[in-house]
């Protein structure tokens, strides 16, 4: 496919479980972003990768959140010991370059519900 894909689309977890969310960016895109979108709100930045390097993780809400992009393509966002407040849609976006003017292409998101 030509777009950004994310899996799973929906994830239900019991509080305390670990979850892993996957993002497949557009092939060749250097930059990859993760955002968290609470219900009815705008997305909030979590972390940024330039190729395999995680250059900004200032938005990760706690040390339970971990992201990686080991080969500079697919990325995984892992949440350990999930809490109810982690319930949100997690959006992944990629862009061709590493400058602000590069358009970001978003995936459909993963809706995480923590019971």
């Amino acid at each position, binding site marked *: 496919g030509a777009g950004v894909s994310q899996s799973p689309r929906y994830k239900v977890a019991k509080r305390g479980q670990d979850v892993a969310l996957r993002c497949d960016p557009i092939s060749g895109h250097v*930059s990859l*972003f993760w*955002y968290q979108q609470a219900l*009815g*709100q*705008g*997305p*909030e*930045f979590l972390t*940024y990768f*330039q190729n395999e390097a995680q*250059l*900004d993780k200032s938005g990760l809400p706690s040390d339970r959140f971990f992201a990686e992009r080991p080969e500079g393509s697919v990325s995984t966002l892992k949440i350990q010991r999930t809490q109810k407040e982690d319930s949100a*849609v997690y*959006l992944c*976006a990629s*862009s061709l370059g*590493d*400058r*602000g*003017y*590069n*358009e*970001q292409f*978003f*995936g*459909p*998101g993963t809706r995480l519900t923590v019971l």
Partner: protein
Amino acid sequence: AQTVTQSQPEMSVQEAETVTLSCTYDTSESNYYLFWYKQPPSRQMILVIRQEAYKQQNATENRFSVNFQKAAKSFSLKISDSQLGDTAMYFCAFILGTSYGKLTFGQGTILTVHP
């Protein structure tokens, strides 16, 4: 820090009419980009229009145009000849020109187009 404010939680418009969505932002920087994104119920975020702060001319994309008032830090979106497919959540967003692309979003405006 940069902030983006959308003061209209919900708007509605009749098909074929014109509607304007408001956005204000706050920054001390002079080099930045502003965006309007559309998020339909399917959740995939789509770029609608982009404005470079150094450009005085307002951006236009077919039925979509912006009114960029740099001194007032205002960036409104006008949708002409509204169509049913325009029904979506609209987000105003900001990027520093020196940034790799970390987006700061507003809270969003739900737009409903009625037949």
